[in-house]
């Protein structure tokens, strides 16, 4: 599934949160959306998910414009995971997955839940309330929910934030494996540069609502004369807008 963002703008009264951004993600590729806090990443993702109405600009998913009339059709092919949103805490993992499977119109719900829980090691706490799980377990459940409908386009907002290195690595490895075996285009917003280097085919750097640079990881590090992506990020984040 191809995602195309064209001249996207979002203004909140006098503030321009997203300022005329354009980029594309080719089918089955992963794009890292990077930038300091408050640079407009979440607002951009919100617009791509149909949660925020753009002030101007267009979002195309497989050449279909994300407009109210196409919303349901496109949302059924997408999904999203973030540690900052949760599933109902009083419901068990199984109940939550069942409900979202139904909402996404998944066929053979039981089989799909079994498949997801085996892959993500959720089997032992399938009947436990989601609120009783650890952060790592909750993240895995959130990831299971985001893959329950076998999305063709997945948005991940800091999927491994606040996780210990072991669980973080498990999730990254799982995503790599999943991508290999399934048709999946991903947009990853993250502050973990090692994660971005490992998972992303290309990178878009944002600052103050604008795209200040884009390219592959190797291209960006070499262009900015830095050793790795972390240093490149710091250079761009600390610069005084010379990239605009």
């Amino acid at each position, binding site marked *: 599934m191809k995602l195309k963002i064209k001249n996207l703008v979002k203004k909140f009264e006098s503030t321009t949160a997203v300022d005329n951004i354009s980029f594309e993600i080719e089918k089955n590729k992963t794009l890292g959306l990077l930038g300091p806090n408050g640079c407009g990443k979440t607002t951009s993702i919100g617009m791509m998910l149909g949660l925020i109405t753009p002030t101007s600009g267009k979002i195309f998913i497989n050449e279909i414009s994300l407009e109210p009339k196409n919303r349901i059709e496109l949302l059924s092919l997408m999904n999203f995971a973030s540690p900052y949103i949760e599933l109902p805490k009083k419901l068990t993992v199984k109940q939550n997955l069942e409900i979202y499977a*139904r909402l996404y119109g998944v066929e053979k719900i039981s089989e799909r839940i079994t498949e997801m829980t085996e892959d993500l090691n959720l089997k032992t706490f399938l009947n436990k*309330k989601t609120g009783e799980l650890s952060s790592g377990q909750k993240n895995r459940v959130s990831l299971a929910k985001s893959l329950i409908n076998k999305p063709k386009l997945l948005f991940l907002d800091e999927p491994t934030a606040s996780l210990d290195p072991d669980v973080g690595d498990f999730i990254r490895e799982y995503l790599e494996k999943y991508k290999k075996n399934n048709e999946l285009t991903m947009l990853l917003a993250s502050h973990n540069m090692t994660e971005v280097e490992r998972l992303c085919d290309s990178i878009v750097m944002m600052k103050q609502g604008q795209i200040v640079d884009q390219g592959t990881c190797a291209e960006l590090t070499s262009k900015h004369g830095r050793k790795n992506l972390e240093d490149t990020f710091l250079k761009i984040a600390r610069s005084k807008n010379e990239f605009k």
Partner: protein
Amino acid sequence: MNLNKIFALSLRHIYLIKGSFPRILDLIYWPTIQIFLWGFISKFFTLNSSFYENTVGIILSAAILYDFLFRSSISYNMMFLEEIWSRNFTNLFIAPIKVSEIIAALTFTAIFRTLIGLVPASIIAIPLFGVSIFKIGFPLIFLLVTLYIFGVTLGLLVTAGLVRFGPSFENIAWASLFFLAPLGCIYYPIEILPEWLQIIAKLLPLVHIFEEMRNILIYDIVDYYQILKAILISFIYFVMGIIVFYWSYDGAKDRGTLINIGE
């Protein structure tokens, strides 16, 4: 509308209620307390008021009907608030569901929460105070349907406020019905109100419902025109509630509040 999706949304609330005994107890507790309180007040008035002397339990019947309205509205609000409190809001709004399906699911599920609380309380009133709401007879169905439509409408307006203003609007959810109660003429005839307030009160379905309830219980007369008027007024408010909800939803998308409403 996709019935499977509406069922899935309802299932979330059914699981929630089913999995928590304190939650069920809470649903039953408040209506039962109301019945006890108004039961004793009703008994006192029945013994000491010439207006009520021939008809036992008018006040208690009014209390039960008013509680039905109150519970249906609160149930609607509570289910929506649950999504905000559990920070599930974003997950819900990025799922391929229509706003109309969310409204339908909340509307159908609110009836279960309402009945869980009110059926036991109404049954308790029969042996305890000798008052049965079922004495109203067949028109009771229409009165309950009208109250439910209006209760859901108030719920819709409050949820529209929650979408528009965020969780800070929560207090309005609790206060909304108390605001309308004096105009509803629940426990007294409309003539008690000053004339200018009577005009406003007649614009609400509550006056017509409770006046009709008194007509049936005191004079044993059923005025179906009055009932039809109440249903129509409720339905007009319901349509207005849906419009306001859509308007709030579009506004929230414009302001970007849907993405962080639970925070």
